[in-house]
């Protein structure tokens, strides 16, 4: 059992010498984001100097524009400097030297915002850090999208040079795909999973905090590639173009690899927390659906993201150390990159989709006041999607010249994956049957998610059909498909989850009228932006182009104007978020949605250790409508209950 019932000892992680009281120091003397930035700058300078020193004698690579070693080493040392400046190595180094561990990271005052800029070990603080960061990354990526649509207003008049356009396209795609990998697992997963399973903490608080602090690094490194000309490959980074590209490509490879590492760490922590830190009585059949989604997403990340890191590593060595993994003329193969990338890339899109399924499956029982229909089917659906997602990646390579025998096989597996995905719809439709639906803002976003993902999913089945894919591959049809599933699915669900759980996380309710305005404008303009893109793609416009057929100009203009209005709807959200959290601050400390979730049974925001006592879970979270249902948990179990449970399991 992993529930700790002995007091933490001085030499255990997080413990400290009884006599060693931490000195009270002002915030600017304690390691935090500002010292991290200083460390990063010093680290970058050192790395760049080192790179120049060791590689000045390298001859030019045959397919590369310049010597990238100083840049790569600069980034790597910069990351190390960032982490040192953040103070994450302070206590481990003290332990290694045999000096008393200060453990200051846990000793944060309850109020104040300084702890959000430090390496803090409370999973709730990490969740809030992730939340603000992810919103920032999302809006940055969205700005790039506005630039893309501005360029595509005219097929012949160009606002951006070709290289600027490609930079923007690459930044938009990479920013979104990279950062949104953790958009739910980071803020909502880290914050809510311990509360939902009845635990006072996560399994690995240091790993969790580290996973967060790697994300600003990745964000800055990705943006820094713009300073050296950006990268011309889009988010997929196909070799050999990525080997041929200029210095901006290094920023892409390092940032993406770093984000992969961050996601692996976060996922690893979540998976262990869910498996090992469940409260007594929290059986697998009582686990909230959101936790099932985090579990499956976590497994996918832990198994697939290392392949990405490997692929990025090979790009870096091809560009610096003169290896030839991906260069055909030198004995490598461009197919190797495609396979490595998509072996990660396909589970990646399910990493993006599954948390969305989890959030909406969590929201709808509350606002239908009914149990989730077919709990086991929903869990089986998520597991099925997760497992099958490893067997479909070749559908990104249908036209690449792969062995033709493989195509019917991957067509089959890709079409099969729509069966477990369909379970999510079965569960939703069953939950709506004879329900008492309340159209609150979270419920609206959940409904929007179901509608959008339906279109996205159906277009996915069209793409999985190899003959139909011949026209659709590499066209705007694919673009519309994945925007419908990722933005229409995940991001709508994310906003639903945000409106639903912000009272829990910050004790503040987001303004409801602005929320409804945000939903309706976002829903209408999202569909008006991306629905025509199916037609645009089928009519022959490839992806990532700045020139297109004249007869598609009207459609593209409609899409661009809608996209600008979609941006306005996100501005409405930003206004709502900033005003509600910083200025209006309408307190909401109880259980405003009258949810049965375990996380709602404690105060909003929860106390420092989540639960005063480890709860004993008595029934599932979806037992609405049943007057004989037990409450979800006993938060004050009588003395000896947990000891008795432990004794029972060990006996």
């Amino acid at each position, binding site marked *: 059992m992993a529930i700790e019932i002995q007091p933490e000892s001085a030499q255990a992680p997080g413990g400290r010498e009884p006599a060693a009281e931490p000195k009270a120091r002002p915030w600017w003397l304690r390691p935090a984001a500002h010292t991290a930035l200083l460390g990063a700058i010093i680290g970058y300078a050192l790395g760049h100097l080192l790179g120049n020193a060791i590689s000045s004698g390298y001859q030019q690579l*045959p*397919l590369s524009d310049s010597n990238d070693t100083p840049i790569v080493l600069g980034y790597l040392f910069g990351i190390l400097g960032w982490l040192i400046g953040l103070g994450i190595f302070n206590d481990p180094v003290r332990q290694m030297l045999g000096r008393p561990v200060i453990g200051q990271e846990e000793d944060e005052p309850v109020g104040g915002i300084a702890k959000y800029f430090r390496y803090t070990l409370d999973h709730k603080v990490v969740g809030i850090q992730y939340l603000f960061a992810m919103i920032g990354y999302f809006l940055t990526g969205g700005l790039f999208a506005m630039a893309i649509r501005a360029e595509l207003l005219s097929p012949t008049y160009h606002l951006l040079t*070709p290289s600027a*356009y*490609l930079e923007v396209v690459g930044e938009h795609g990479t920013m979104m795909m990279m950062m949104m990998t953790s958009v739910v697992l980071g803020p909502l997963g880290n914050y809510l999973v311990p509360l939902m399973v009845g635990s006072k903490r996560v399994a690995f608080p240091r790993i969790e905090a580290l996973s967060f602090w790697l994300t600003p690094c990745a964000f800055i490194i990705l943006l820094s590639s713009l300073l050296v000309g950006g990268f*011309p490959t889009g988010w997929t980074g*196909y070799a*050999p*173009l990525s080997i*041929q*590209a200029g210095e901006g490509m290094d920023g892409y490879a390092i940032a993406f690899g770093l984000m992969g590492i961050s996601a692996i760490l976060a996922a690893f922590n979540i998976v262990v927390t869910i498996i090992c830190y469940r409260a007594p009585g929290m059986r697998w059949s009582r686990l909230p659906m959101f936790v099932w989604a985090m579990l499956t997403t976590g497994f996918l990340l832990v198994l697939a993201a290392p392949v990405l890191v490997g692929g990025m590593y090979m790009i870096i060595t091809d560009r610096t150390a003169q290896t030839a993994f991906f260069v055909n*003329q030198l004995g490598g193969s*461009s*197919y190797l990159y495609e396979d490595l990338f998509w072996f990660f890339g396909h589970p990646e899109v399910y990493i993006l989709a599954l948390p969305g399924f989890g959030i909406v499956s969590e929201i709808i029982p509350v606002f239908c*006041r*009914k*149990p989730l*229909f077919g*709990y*086991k089917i929903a869990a089986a659906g998520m597991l099925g999607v997760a497992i099958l997602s490893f067997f479909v990646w070749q559908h990104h390579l249908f036209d*690449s*010249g*792969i062995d*033709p025998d493989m195509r019917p096989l991957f067509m089959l597996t890709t*079409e099969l994956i*729509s069966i477990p995905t*369909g*379970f999510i*719809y*079965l569960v939703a439709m*069953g939950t*709506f*049957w*004879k*329900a*008492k*639906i*309340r159209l609150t803002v979270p419920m609206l976003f959940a409904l929007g998610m*179901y509608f959008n993902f*339906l279109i996205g999913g*159906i277009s996915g*089945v*069209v793409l999985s*059909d*190899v*003959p*139909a894919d*011949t*026209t659709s*591959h590499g066209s705007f049809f694919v673009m519309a498909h994945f925007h419908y599933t990722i933005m229409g699915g995940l991001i709508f669900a994310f906003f639903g989850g945000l409106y639903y759980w912000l009272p829990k996380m910050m004790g503040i309710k987001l303004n409801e009228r602005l929320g409804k305005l945000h939903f309706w404008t976002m829903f209408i303009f999202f569909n008006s932006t991306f629905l025509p893109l199916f037609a645009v793609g*089928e*009519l*022959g416009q*490839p992806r*990532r*182009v700045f020139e297109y057929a004249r007869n598609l100009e009207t459609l593209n203009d409609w899409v661009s104007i809608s996209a600008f209005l979609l941006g306005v709807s996100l501005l409405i959200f930003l206004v709502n978020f900033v005003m509600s959290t910083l200025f209006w601050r309408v307190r909401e400390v109880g259980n405003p949605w009258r949810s049965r979730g375990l996380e709602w049974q404690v105060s909003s925001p929860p106390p420092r250790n989540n639960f005063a006592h480890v709860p004993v879970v008595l029934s599932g979270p979806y*037992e*609405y409508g049943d*007057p*004989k249902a037990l409450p979800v948990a006993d938060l004050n179990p009588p003395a000896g209950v947990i000891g008795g449970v432990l004794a029972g399991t060990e006996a």
Partner: protein
Amino acid sequence: MATEASTPGPPEAPETGEPAAEPRHGLRILILWVVASVICCPIVYFVWGPHLPPGAMSSSAANQQFDLTVLATIATPVFLGVVIYMGYALTFWRAKDGDETDGPPIHGNAKIQVTWIAATSTIVLALFVFGTIELVTVQGAGAGQGPQPIWKPDSSNILQVQVIGQQWAWTYRYPQFGGFETTQLELPLNQPVEFNVTSLDVIHSFWAYQLGVKADANPGVNNIAYTTPKHTGGFVVRCAELCGLWHGAMFNYGTVVSPAAFQTWAQQTETQLASVTKMLPPYALTYDPTGIANLGKVLVQLGIGGAGGGYYPPNDPEQP
């Protein structure tokens, strides 16, 4: 409401004490769905189908149009089903103002779950069989099959065209006419064409839109795709894989002409370009540009202008 909790079984049990029976929601939804599908599916198949991209200019394009029509016809009832159900739920099952009570505690329904799983599995497997048939019987549906294609036209008279992609232009070589290289893609009507697609530098993708052909151009790899043009006319060739700076400008146009006109053109071009063809590397299924002498001079002679020329100075490291 207290008696509702007893059976989570058939959801249509009438409430006790109510004068009228509970409306048969399931039946209503089913009727709405069937009526909507019966109206929309024929419209999709017969009215929209013949206008679906990519048209019917070639055998593979017509095949893809048929595929897309069938997929759209099957997708229609799926889409309508979910949307009608959701719409019905949002109309009839909304909580009334001030009603804070819960709904019926229905946890699941084995019959519905099994039916759903069976139905979705059947649809998906049927689509798989359909897709495989469409892939296999039309010579690979215009998709690139790699260097060893297994679905070939069974004809002895296949026109071979090599498509060479490079940053940022398409050129075509006709090995059956002496291996001349040109930027014009002319094809004869009703003769199966074998496209051998390769690249000289990075990954491109040869997408002949109206011909329904898409094959990635990989360096050092020969990717073969088949189609048979069925109507004369022009078509667009675009690059469908991001290949660098001028990817957006990497397109040209081709034409399908009558067999006689094609023969005339091919023989004329062969004669006209004879001196240039001597300078080219011998026709091969793949090329290593680092080994091609005089590549720069050849490009200039062939007049590859616009995006493909001028931005590629001879002293660029990519050029030998």
